[in-house]
């Protein structure tokens, strides 16, 4: 990238230009960032399996994405929102039966072996399709991967598979691992799952359980200008308040994934040398959803669901629970997915009086104690915000005469109660939108999911019309037609409210201002950090 040169005379022209020029100088500094240094980052969990080809989850990606790369990464300005990584070009066939990837030449694994199309074929057929939690869905119809030469991989599908889906899923489900490490072994038990060997800008150096993961610079990275850093250390800090204090003390330089509690952000943003960044999570949007058990006769009544939607003040939720670091949701697809998003859906304005009215008319009259009926409400324990919203929802429901009893549980008990035992009336869940509605969104409302599938439609909602659209979209190869189907999907979901989307949020990164090139792609925290640098 070229930096416009500024002549001395232009500089003299005035303070406004002077200001602009310092901004440019700052930008120039970021581009030509100094090489070297150790970046220390807060990590709040230690995944037991670090292989992103098997476990596609943010906790794993956070560390592993620096070592093992996908075929393409999300990008703010790339074509279709993608930037090339191990693949340099991708093309879907018109019949939806194949996708051709051109692979990068001259890439070597960290152990010195060359990277070829055989690695991609092996990863796809032996890991992504049969083993990966999300790839099992995306690559369900993958039949074979042809490798006509070392740098071409052709994916062949048994049924037409929308290229749009494959493309959108690339950053999440296509982490490539080395065939020579996993071939012929019990993949689940292979030590390569934790001693990562990849093609990325950083090599896996050391893991001290309970203390840290250390990654060191890959001298032979295919992008000769990267990485900028010598080392990244992920320091295990389980306590959130301590992560903020460690940043203040300059013992760590960066905390991603809202490792610092929202309530501390205001104070920290005023500390000299610390910046609070909300960019860089656009492709990992979390959704705050009220899950509804349709087996409960009151909740099977659309009027009751509408009344509940009218009882929730989304603005209050965004401002008070998320302290402004979120947006009100309109439906099952977040605004951060402009490819699919439509605002042309039914709206339920905050109006408790109307909600009461609806319930009265529907025949759910208030008893002597002012309550119409009782519900069991289970807020998911994963985030402070989901629990706080549970408390809020209880009060909002009380205002319309519904008595909700909150049942708190830890993660394992919550999952079993909601998704296996269906022992709930309402639940608060935080599903993630992963770039395409087919990956983890349609499953929330599609009928016929077997018991025990986490983050799925376990409320027993059945809507043949909606099921038909979901099925049609999954087979529609034409991108425009498929996008259109998902618009219709949003309208149907919001009209019939199988669940209620309340808010959508990304995480917050807090960093010392010495860390350069932070949040420069829509899933930055889980990308490779090749251009991240430290100002000396």
């Amino acid at each position, binding site marked *: 990238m070229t930096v416009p040169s500024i002549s001395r005379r232009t500089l003299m022209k005035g303070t406004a230009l002077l200001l602009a020029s310092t901004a440019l100088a700052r930008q120039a500094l970021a581009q030509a960032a100094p090489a070297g240094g150790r970046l220390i980052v807060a990590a709040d969990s230690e995944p037991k399996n670090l292989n992103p080809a098997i476990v596609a989850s943010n906790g794993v990606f956070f560390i592993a994405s620096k070592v093992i790369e996908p075929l393409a990464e999300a990008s703010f300005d790339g074509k279709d929102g993608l930037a090339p990584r191990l693949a340099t070009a991708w093309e879907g066939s018109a019949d939806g039966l194949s996708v051709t990837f051109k692979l990068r030449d001259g890439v070597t694994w960290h152990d010195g072996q060359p990277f070829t199309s055989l690695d991609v074929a092996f990863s796809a057929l032996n890991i992504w399709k049969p083993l990966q939690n999300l790839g099992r869905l995306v690559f369900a119809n993958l039949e074979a991967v042809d490798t006509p030469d070392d740098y071409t991989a052709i994916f062949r599908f048994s049924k037409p598979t929308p290229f749009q889906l494959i493309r959108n899923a690339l950053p999440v489900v296509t982490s490539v691992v080395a065939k020579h490490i996993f071939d012929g072994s019990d993949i689940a038990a292979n030590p390569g799952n934790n001693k990562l060997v990849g093609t990325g800008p950083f090599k896996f150096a050391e893991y001290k359980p*309970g203390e840290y993961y250390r990654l060191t610079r890959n001298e032979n990275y295919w992008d000769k200008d990267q990485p900028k850093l010598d080392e990244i250390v992920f320091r295990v800090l389980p306590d959130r308040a*301590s992560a903020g204090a460690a940043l203040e003390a300059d013992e760590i330089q960066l905390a991603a994934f809202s490792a610092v509690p929202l309530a501390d952000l205001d104070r920290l943003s005023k500390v000299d040398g610390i910046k609070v960044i909300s960019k860089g999570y656009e492709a990992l949007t979390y959704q705050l959803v009220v899950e509804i058990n349709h087996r409960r006769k009151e909740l099977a009544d659309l009027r009751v669901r509408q009344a509940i939607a009218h009882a929730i003040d989304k603005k209050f939720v965004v401002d008070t629970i998320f302290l402004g670091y979120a947006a009100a949701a309109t439906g099952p697809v977040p605004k951060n997915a402009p490819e699919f998003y439509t605002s042309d859906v039914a709206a339920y304005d905050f109006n408790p009086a109307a909600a009461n009215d609806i319930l009265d008319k529907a025949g759910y009259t208030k008893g002597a104690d002012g309550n119409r009926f009782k519900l069991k409400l289970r807020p998911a324990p994963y985030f402070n915000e989901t629990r706080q919203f549970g408390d809020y929802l209880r009060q909002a429901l009380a205002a319309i005469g519904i008595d909700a009893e909150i049942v708190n549980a830890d*993660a394992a008990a919550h999952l079993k109660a909601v998704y296996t035992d269906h022992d709930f009336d309402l639940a608060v869940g935080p599903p993630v939108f992963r770039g395409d509605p087919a990956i983890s969104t349609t499953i929330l409302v599609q009928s016929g999911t077997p018991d025990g*599938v986490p983050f799925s439609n376990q409320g027993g909602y059945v809507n043949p019309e909606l099921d038909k659209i979901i099925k049609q979209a999954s087979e529609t190869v034409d991108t425009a037609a498929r996008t259109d189907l998902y618009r219709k999907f949003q309208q149907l979901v919001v009209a019939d409210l199988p669940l209620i989307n309340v808010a959508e949020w990304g995480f917050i990164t807090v960093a010392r201002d010495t860390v350069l090139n932070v949040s420069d792609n829509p899933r930055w925290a889980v990308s490779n950090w090749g251009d991240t640098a430290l100002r000396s």
Partner: protein
Amino acid sequence: MKRAILLLRRRAISSLPVLLIVVIFTFFLLESASGDAVDAYLGSIGGGDAALKQALRESYGLDRSTLARLWLYLSSLARLDLGWSVAFDRPVGVLIAERLPNTLLLMGSATALSFGVGSALGILAGARPGSVRDRLLSIGSLIVYAIPSFWLGLVLSIAFSVKLRWFPIAGIETIASGKTGFSRALDISAHLVLPVSALALIYLALFLRVMRAGMGQVWKLDFVLFARAKGLSRSRIVLRHVARNALLPLVTMLGLQSAAMLGGSVVIESVFAIPGFGRLAQEAVNGRDAPLLMGIILTSAVLVIAVNFLVDLVYAGLDPRIGASEGGA
């Protein structure tokens, strides 16, 4: 010495049924908790389908019956094999061996500090009951005892790490420093100052109060009266006659507190990011990792039994009557 070994052997044998009861009780307690290791794992990785869930359950052996799993666990335990941790995918024995030293270091230092300083201050307070010094110490100890340990930990780290930058904020040693020998020991000590202080302060207050109360009782006994009548100096009476006898309940409490401290260290280990036993226990519970949690509880039980044995030995040294009755029985 020979008596101590005999005592040790008898204790070890009599402890076995206790440990077996602990294991079986914990097993069924965990069994009664809703959700299992697969639920916890799928939640942490953001979901998966029903077939994946089934496959995981089979590979963890969770598809077998409760009794079959208990039998499997007990029989591997009989071979001194603590089993395989589901949440960490590593042997339980190795995990415990890695984490236990950090916690023992933390607890040991905190116990020594709280016992030493607590009993010394207790003597100071109890030497002149009712004096201004006694009141100040008593009120001060009450306040400290009422403070929650996580709060104390946070306040200490904000004051001494964030503001003053005297001590490191977290961890057990400087990460990837490559230090060895004496400089490493120094490094670890610097890291331990704040967590040990936070953990010790609470127990220090407790020891102070027990010591002071014990002294108050001994003062009234005849032999102290006799010592005073003999015209012995006050400091000699306080140290040789009163404090020595008031120390006995403190030693008893030392044994009891060792178990409580193991629990208290969970919080301190989290706040100061120390990879210890307490945090491991917390992670085992969150991951519904039955083998790991059983291993931890079993090890804790052995630790408590061992500490109590040591306490008994000390007790016997302090008060010969007790040792005689144990040995003669």
